[in-house]
């Protein structure tokens, strides 16, 4: 494409767990890319609006100027466009179906978590119940395994890990302790955090909590 920037550019936002999924994926595959921090609370850049006109959201991966949107789709794209790098998804169709199911399901952690810090009263209580169900399901799927698919770090771990620094905050708003209620999940989170690609991509929980406060002010929530 004439005039288009060659190589990989990731339009992202420092604390976005969806962007972090892509950063972890790129690191796992050993792929070089340019990280481009985007403005989300203020005006979105021309580049972001042009690259993701439908959702106007990060992450967006630009490959030789062509945009790929949505974190899980970006991860699929990386596997398919760079077949000579370590695969993020398993090879077996059934294992892939399971990976896709649980990675997509894990989006609920962020969706429900947002309701948890935003809402109050009965709606917040409902969000809490939903979060307990979601984390319970994830914990159940993990079971006593080291990682979701077994012995090795894989697609589902990659998809879920970025939500782990948000869990202490969600726990505060929801009145639960991940450590106490789902110790296996808590141990898994620590196991993932020890992995280089994950450690380099995630923000510490304190920064995430600070950010939630920024979002609350932005929404006019004062408690």
């Amino acid at each position, binding site marked *: 494409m004439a005039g288009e920037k060659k190589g990989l550019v990731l339009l992202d936002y420092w604390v976005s767990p969806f962007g972090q999924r892509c950063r972890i994926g790129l690191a796992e595959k050993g792929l070089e890319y340019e990280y481009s921090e985007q403005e989300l609370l203020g005006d979105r850049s021309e580049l972001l609006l042009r690259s993701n006109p439908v959702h106007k959201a990060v992450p967006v991966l630009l490959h030789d100027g062509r945009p790929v949107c*949505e974190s899980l789709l970006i991860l699929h794209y990386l596997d398919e466009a760079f077949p000579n790098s370590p695969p993020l998804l398993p090879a077996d169709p059934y294992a892939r179906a399971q990976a896709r199911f649980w990675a997509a399901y894990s989006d609920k952690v962020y969706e429900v978590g947002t309701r948890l810090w935003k809402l109050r009263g009965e709606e917040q209580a409902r969000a809490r119940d939903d979060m307990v169900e979601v984390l319970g399901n994830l914990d159940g799927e993990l079971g006593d395994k080291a990682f979701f698919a077994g012995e090795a770090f894989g697609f589902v771990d990659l998809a879920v890990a970025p939500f782990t620094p948000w869990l202490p905050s969600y726990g505060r708003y929801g009145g639960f302790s991940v450590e106490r209620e789902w110790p296996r999940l808590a141990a898994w989170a620590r196991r993932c955090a020890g992995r280089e690609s994950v450690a380099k991509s995630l923000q510490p929980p304190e920064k995430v909590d600070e950010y939630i406060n920024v979002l609350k002010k932005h929404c006019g929530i004062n408690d």
Partner: protein
Amino acid sequence: MVPASASLHCHDTRSLTGTEAKMAEQVKLIGSSNSPFVHRAAVALRLKGVPYEFIREDMSNKSELLLKHNPVHKKVPVLLHGDRAVCESLVIVEYVDEAFDGGPPLLPADPYDRATARFWAHFLEEKCLKSLWPALWTEGEVQEAAMKEARENLALVEEQLREKRFFGGDSIGLADIAGAGLLGHWVGVLEEVAGVRVLSDKEHPALRRWAAEYLANEAVKECLPDRDQLLSHFSAIRDKCVSVAKSMLPK
């Protein structure tokens, strides 16, 4: 009478020969007769030429089989391939594409085109459908806002379809399976039950054309529920549609 060639796909395996029954036993689709999501899974199986047994689920009285194989969502469709269960209609479609040889590919070969197909499949599933539901079933100002969003989303789909026969090109693919049945067949019924118009020939000519081509496909026709049946079904559950729509509104 169900013709012999369609017998592999019919609800009752007692009419199959021994060999046919054995083949059909391997793949089962748990579903209800009125679900556009079940339709997606059925279309994928038929396009790939995979024989299957349809297990009809009564959603008002969920079976042990369903609850065992989809404990997380407790929803249909669920694909059983041997003893392996695959849940979520679009996951099922990709699984069917990858697990079975034969039949046309449901996704293009090029990685960028695959990403584009998946993007529109998800858009149709997430944004389109989720904005349509409140647009149909709420009232007053809330409905006006929902309708505005639904129409914006439909306009995006319309724009995409101006240059294409199907999202995937010449043949039906993932994104078409995600949206054409819903927008071409189910939405007409829902509009009638709700008394609300969302789609029109004037504003959505490409969408109409795309849906018509999809609905003309033989594999699609074989697993499309009868319009009157859908009308009767959704009329009966109108109240439930309204309460679901309310729960979908942003807080």
